[in-house]
């Protein structure tokens, strides 16, 4: 993420001017940049020695208006000056006076490749032009609302996109008693900038309010001091602020340059703090959002368009392309390496969306009736996630789970079996008692039609499908599922009590009775039996 953060000001004399910029550099660039600057090991580095500065003054005299392109004009007035406290060098007092501090450099603790350079202007002339353009536009052209403080986003492809947060700072000497400032965040990537909007605006707002509160304190203090002075001596002309007529008042004020931020806020190390804040903002903004490229990834479509599996969890989107149409044939397209991404299914709703209505119902039917579920896939995480989901459906004491088995285990050992794709299932098993799930395909097991579903509805499956079909928030669905599970678990408990009460060999009538008592259909009885733990019997 390449961006520049800067503070700009609408100066009385110069108009919109850039006060301070911070930019992130990667290591190989810093060494090129350091020509002309002697890079010291500390945070602050000195400028060229003093004998070169008259040349800069010469440039200053020739340039009246700040030009938009080319080299930046040096600071011509105190109010937009970049003023730093003198360097504290212990010992030799002769050295600091010859140097003028040009900027800051901060090394990133966590990433030694990155440094943040803070200075008056960015070094490259193109960048300078872009920052200056952004500055002019931010202060003199765009506004979120006339006279109000707030963020605006604008820009174009040539000069980059800018998020600008404008605010006012109180100053006793200024016209209207306040001055306009703005924080600018410049980068070329518009989408990234828009995505970072809430973060940046809140950080800028915090920074601005802290500056404003500090300035207000100073403002109040000065006002109080002035009033007390006026009370004491009405006619004394003590200092530049007390005029004796409006004309003199105006005349005096127009001659004095306005104060720089250091004086205005009465903080000597203001720019140090500002640079620290800007560096943090750059770093945090870069960290906050990360972009990933999806190589040849496409949407997974399962079943028909209605049950299109567009999972909200992007992880699932990164599966290899898998197309499955209604007839049940599947065509496996190129599978690209998914080593870096782990594919998991996190919620039963995703499983429902992925499998589609029919397949899901079959899955639940088989599982709830006590058939063995074999989940087979090449990705162990995927297997584990599906196993976990299925396990949640059942009361744990009656459900044996074996994830990650090395070979096939029969139904007596476990209900849910997770296998790697390569492990073969022995052929002699009765296919109707197992249900094999390989990715999004179910093999074997029983179908709903086998069980005689046409006459009456399978209440369990219908209710479960009904809940998962809801297009509501995940939390709501989870609560509904919980309620559903508890309901059926209580029914199972009642059935268990019924069986334990000596009704093991019940006939058809008794079955019908108990079914009516539990408010379920007869077709659900095998499910209830499984839930209550009696299916193995």
């Amino acid at each position, binding site marked *: 993420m390449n961006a520049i953060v800067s503070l700009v000001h609408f100066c009385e004399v110069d108009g919109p001017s850039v006060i301070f910029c911070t930019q992130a550099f990667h290591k190989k660039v810093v060494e090129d940049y350091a020509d002309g600057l002697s890079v010291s090991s500390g945070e602050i580095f000195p400028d060229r020695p003093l004998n070169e500065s008259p040349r800069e003054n010469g440039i200053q005299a020739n340039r009246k208006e700040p030009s938009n392109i080319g080299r930046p004009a040096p600071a011509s007035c105190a109010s937009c000056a970049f003023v730093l406290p003198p360097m504290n060098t212990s010992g030799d007092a002769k050295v600091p006076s010859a140097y003028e501090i040009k900027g800051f450099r901060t090394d990133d603790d966590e990433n030694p490749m990155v440094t943040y350079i803070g200075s008056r202007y960015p070094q490259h002339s193109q960048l300078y032009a872009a920052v200056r353009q952004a500055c*002019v536009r931010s202060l003199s052209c765009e506004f979120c609302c006339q006279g109000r403080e707030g963020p605006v986003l604008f820009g174009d492809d040539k000069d980059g996109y800018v998020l600008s947060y404008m605010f006012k700072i109180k100053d006793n000497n200024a016209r209207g008693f306040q001055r306009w400032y703005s924080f600018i965040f410049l980068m070329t990537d518009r989408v990234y900038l828009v995505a970072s909007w809430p973060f940046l605006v809140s950080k800028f707002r915090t920074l601005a309010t802290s500056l404003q509160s500090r300035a207000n304190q100073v403002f109040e203090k000065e006002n109080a001091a002035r009033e007390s002075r006026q009370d004491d001596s009405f006619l004394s002309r003590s200092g530049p602020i007390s005029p004796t007529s409006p004309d003199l*008042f105006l005349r005096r004020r*127009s001659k004095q340059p306005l104060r720089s931020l250091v004086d205005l806020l009465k903080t000597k190390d203001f720019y140090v703090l500002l640079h620290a804040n800007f560096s943090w903002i750059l770093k945090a903004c870069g960290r906050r959002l990360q972009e990933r490229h999806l190589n040849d990834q496409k949407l997974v479509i399962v079943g028909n368009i209605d049950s299109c599996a567009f999972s909200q969890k992007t992880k699932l989107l990164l599966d290899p392309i898998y197309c499955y149409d209604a007839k049940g044939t599947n065509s496996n397209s190129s599978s690209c390496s998914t080593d870096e991404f782990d594919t998991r299914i996190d919620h039963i709703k995703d499983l429902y969306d992925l499998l589609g209505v029919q397949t899901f119902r079959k899955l639940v039917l088989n599982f709830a009736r006590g058939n063995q579920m074999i989940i087979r896939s090449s990705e162990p995480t995927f297997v584990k996630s599906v196993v976990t989901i299925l396990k949640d459906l059942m009361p744990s004491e009656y459900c044996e789970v074996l994830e990650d088995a090395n070979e096939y285990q029969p139904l007596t050992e476990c209900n849910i079996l997770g296998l790697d794709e390569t492990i073969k299932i022995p052929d002699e098993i009765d296919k109707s008692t197992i249900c094999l799930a390989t990715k999004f395909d179910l093999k074997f097991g029983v179908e709903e039609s086998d069980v005689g579903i046409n006459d009456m509805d399978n209440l369990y499956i219908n209710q479960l499908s009904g809940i998962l079909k809801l297009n509501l928030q995940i939390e709501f669905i989870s609560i509904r599922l919980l309620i559903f599970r508890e309901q059926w678990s209580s029914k199972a408990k009642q059935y268990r009590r019924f069986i334990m009460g000596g009704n093991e060999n019940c006939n058809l009538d008794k079955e019908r009775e108990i079914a009516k008592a539990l408010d379920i259909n007869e077709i659900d009885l095998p499910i209830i039996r499984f839930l209550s733990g009696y299916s193995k019997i």
Partner: protein
Amino acid sequence: MPQSLDDQYSLGDSIVDMGGGDGIDDPVQDNRPRILIMGLRRSGKSSIQKVVFHSMNANDTLFLESTNIIIKEDFQSFIDFHVWDFPGQLDFFDPTFDTNAIFGEYGALIFVIDAQDDYMEALTRLHDTVTRAYRVNPNLFFEVFIHKVDALSDEYKIETQRDIHQRTTDELADFGLEKVSLGFHLTSIYDRSIFEAFSKVIQKLIPQLPTLENLLNILCANSGIEKAFLFDINSKIYIATDSSPVDIQSYEICSEMIDVIFDISEIYSKRTSTRNDSGMSQSIKSAIQPTTDETASDASSLVRLHNDMVLYLKGVNRFLALVCLIPSDNLEKHGLIDYNFQCFKQAITDVFDLKRLSIERRLEEDIDDDDISI
């Protein structure tokens, strides 16, 4: 291709309703004349705009903020204007600004020079501005306000004006722009001179001016009126006057009379909204609420002066009022004057309607053109 700033991002006007529109919401691109107020920083541009169009108290302009963006406002009256107040620090002929969009419309450019300060730099900027703006749009009217002359003595005022005039014409002649005519005005916000200057500027922009002057001449001749001004009530600028020479004191007294009358009428009018006592003068608030409603069109008032003259105010319509100075002898034929005034009022209304119809017709034609193009 990157578009320039003002073109792509001109965010509409901040509309200040100066007394109700005439019902047609025109966008910026219509043919409303545009008045640009430019000058060096601290020359007094924003103060002028506030005092004239927002009825701000002149002493309150001390507390105005420095302008950092172009403030675009609407002035609605018998004729609608845009008034643009520029920040003095920026150079608007920079290639990043769309000079065509700024200077290309029909209107006037007012350059404000601070007469209390050393004006050499201002003159340089003036010459620069005039030459470049003329290149963009030769039809602009150029006016120079020599501002803040309230503190100068009379000879000094005249001397300054002469000096500035001399230098400017010389400079423009060097550039080959002799045919550019500049108007010079001595102004100050502490008296009425700024209003007078503005009136003269606006009069240049009204195409119906000859008609109005003619009507006023007829009225004055036939009613024994010595001097008549057709005022815009909210801003106290006069739109038209009869052909006799304008004396600044008559103008002052007429505009003060309007102030007095409408302030008194406020006392007796219905309170439609609450007023809050902000730090600024209340006249700002009153400017934003329309002080003229239906009663203004029928207002009538009479003030007898000590020198046997009578000030007679008659409301013409929502925006305009006629204020005339009549010798008190002529007032005996009061009924005649009133009848003449009715005719005059009708004529003004007709002119007004004509203007509106032409705008409507033009809008229809635009719509038709759009249809054809579709």
